[in-house]
């Protein structure tokens, strides 16, 4: 039997409490229960990265994780990424995360279906490694498929974002 269990966690900075079935994935929970549809379902097998979210700051494919496995953890989706950045940097709303801004300016999104996952993977990459080389950016996005862009403008967007994210720190150092 697939009974419901109580789940408590933080999503995009807010405490959330819900009853969920043991078989429910984090992706189903985010899209279905919380109606956070910015995270897309594409393969459901962890092969494409479209559903990437941050769990405690690290990129995770939400289709492969059970909702109950993130009990007590801190989940950030594309909808919560500006807020996460504002908390980290002191930027004021409605400032976007530099990776989002980079995608906007460099043309990183075409159909956009991979974009949320790609941005979350890149944001997680830059939290772990603020000054990646181009090869490290490519490697960091290896699990995220894009059918439209050839990744060129995505990689450029992440480079631009990394530069911007370093600048305030360097200025204050």
């Amino acid at each position, binding site marked *: 039997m697939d009974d419901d269990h109580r789940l408590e966690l933080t999503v995009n900075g807010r405490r959330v409490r819900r009853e969920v079935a043991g078989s429910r994935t984090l992706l189903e929970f985010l899209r279905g229960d919380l109606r956070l549809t910015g995270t897309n379902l594409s393969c459901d097998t962890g092969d494409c990265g479209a559903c990437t979210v941050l769990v405690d700051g690290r990129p995770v494919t939400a289709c492969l994780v059970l909702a109950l496995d993130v009990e007590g953890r801190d989940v950030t989706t594309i909808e919560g990424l500006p807020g996460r950045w504002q908390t980290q940097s002191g930027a004021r709303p409605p400032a976007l995360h530099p990776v989002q801004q980079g995608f906007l300016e460099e043309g990183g*999104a075409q159909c*956009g279906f991979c974009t949320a996952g790609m941005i979350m993977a890149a944001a997680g990459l830059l939290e772990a490694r603020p000054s990646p080389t181009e090869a490290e950016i490519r490697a960091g996005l290896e699990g995220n498929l894009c059918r*439209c862009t050839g990744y060129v403008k995505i990689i450029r967007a992440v480079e631009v974002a990394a530069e911007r994210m370093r600048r305030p720190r360097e200025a204050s150092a």
Partner: protein
Amino acid sequence: MSRPVDSAVPRAAGGEAVEAAGPGAPARPFRVIGTRVAKLDAVEKVTGAVQYLPDLEVPGMVWGKILRTRVPHARIVRIDTSRAESLPGVLGVVTGRNVEQRPFGYARDHVALKGDVVRCIRDEVAAVAAETEEIAAEACRLIEVDYEELPAVFDPTEALRPEAPRIHPQFPGNRVNFAYTFTAGDVARAFREADLVVEGTYRLNYVTTACLGTMAAIAQWDPRGNLTMWSTTQIPFLYQKDLAEALGISGDRIRVLQPPVGGNFGRGLDLYPIDIIAALLARHVGRPVKIVFDREEEFVASPTREPCVFTLRTAARADGTLLARDARVLIDNGAYVSWGSTTPYVMMTTLAGFYRCPSIRFDTAIVYTNNVYSGSMRGYGNLESTFAIEAQMDELAERLGLDRVEIRRRNANRPGDVTPQGLRITSCGFTECLDAVARDIRRPVDRPLRPGWTRGIGYAGMFHVGGGARVYRSDGCGAIVKLDDFGKVTLITGASEIGQGSETVLAMIVAEELGVPFGRVEVVNNDTAVKPWDVGVHASRTTFIAGNAALLAARDVKAQLLRLAGSQLEEPAEGLDLEDGHVHVKAAPQRRIPYEKVVRAGHFREDGRILIGQAFYDPPTQMLDKDFRGNVSVTYAFAAQAALVEVEEATGKIEVLRVASAHDVGRALNPVGCEGQIEGGIHMGLGYCLTEELRLRDGRVLNPGFLDYKLLTAPDMPEILITLIETVDEAGPFGAKGLGEAGTIPISAAVANAVKDATGVRLTELPMTPERVYRALRARKG
């Protein structure tokens, strides 16, 4: 007259105006055209606010799920849906036996739910509507179907044999009854008198669009029998007609909504069973029904690129001048006819048009098999022809002792040429494209050659429609431009946005022509109840065709606005102009008023009026006639690509280090959009070339997932150096030509030629997997 815009050098985003040049030079410098503009929907896409079809919910909506056959060719003996229907949460089940259906598809050779015979593994036998997607899937498992298996055939050559199983009783010999035969000049004599004849057979693979967003549909009937469809289609108005016929209702009862779509690339160019089944289910259960393909279903049941065997001979003189080509193509159509079987139309145009070649013979056999069936996919038909033609250009050069770029230059199409089919070449920057890639591919490489690897360079060119393509009786698009009280400019276009950025470029065209800031233009393009007619998004036609329609509609509304302003400023309309959002008196520019004030005054005064401009642009072109002659496009697009590759002898692994890609785009309206199309096109073309293959065995898809169907990832991609050549086409909107498919078309040929250059081995089959390359290298060594 052409002017390269070197995009290899990164530039700052936004605001950088391209200086005007050439015959299409405007009266004033461009404000919007040529600047690097972010897509209109970019903010929604980077914030996750965008709502794709799977994100949408309609009140009362339930989920649909399709049951497919277990065997590729069989008679359906019995379908028992009783257990499924009694499952709690199930609202109803439809089969080919309990709903009325009519034939549909390109050749009207099948129905959505197969009642008697299944002919390929994707065939739909039943569909369930239930309260949740999980219940619908569970109910599908409870449907009992008994099949009596029939002999099947999966190879097109075998399907042509007299004893082969017949797939459709009305088509003896399994031949699709389309004949694509073309001849020009004296082919036999040309081959007799040639100094050199080269020949080869090329095997091109099954690939699929593999869009990140799968096919999906929502169907909702109202109590009066009107149907609203949310669809991933690319042809909303033809779809309206086709779906109406399939359902036995009239087209005016169907409204088509096109939410943002997670890629398309030709997938939505025909009507497919998913949409019909959603509508049938919704009518059957009296509730709105949503169907979203899962990933496996997307690989099995969305249309593919057609696999083919392309046999080509080319005759040339000793100086490399082409004399004749003779081609025969065998196409595996799969079980039903969709657009895949029409690809010879494009194959032929390239074969008979790319490079000057006076004598042509082209023939095809399009064969029904029990494989999944093909539709249209980016650049369709052209990748295949280009692969064969360009392999032989290299072979001619090698055997005649000519430089590989030089032989292409000598045979290059030029302005004023008319191809044997009657295609009229107007603007043509092909030679400049060749020069650009020959320059860029030889820039220094900052990586030494590894031991055991060899390095090579390959070239290939491309010729494609660039000013629409009259594949239907109309190649038209309608546009409406409406001005409101606040200065908002609304472009209502028939064209469809599928992620390629067309709505952005259309808004740029309107802003430029009207003389208003880009930010004031919005685009409505997703509702057949509102937007004017258009034939669909395909053939790289939208910038050119919908762009011309938008330009004409903007011109129309501007003339109306100036007439209205004339009475306010007490000046003749001819003495006025609109620039920077203000109407001013040309002779006294300080006398000016914001254009929204003019519009508002029109609404509030006596004898008022609204300002709405409209246009329908259908280009002055012809459909190919019964002999396949006619000028199908107003203008043609050209490109050249060069690839720098390394091949590892011990493993057969190919690494593409760099691709140089030069494109005659007419004019780069939004350079960031142009580059995006080219870069993405190269990704798709390289996948076709190196890794992608939908593998079928006995009609079953063996690799229906991203783990086994390999799209190239970020680390796999080469450095890409792009040059945009601006020939400023006289018929294009601000001089632009189509570009959407160009990046995809020549790349596999360029890579194959580079592998030949590196190793001396000619690969004639795609994808060029390490195993294939390794075997070819071994065979060379003997």
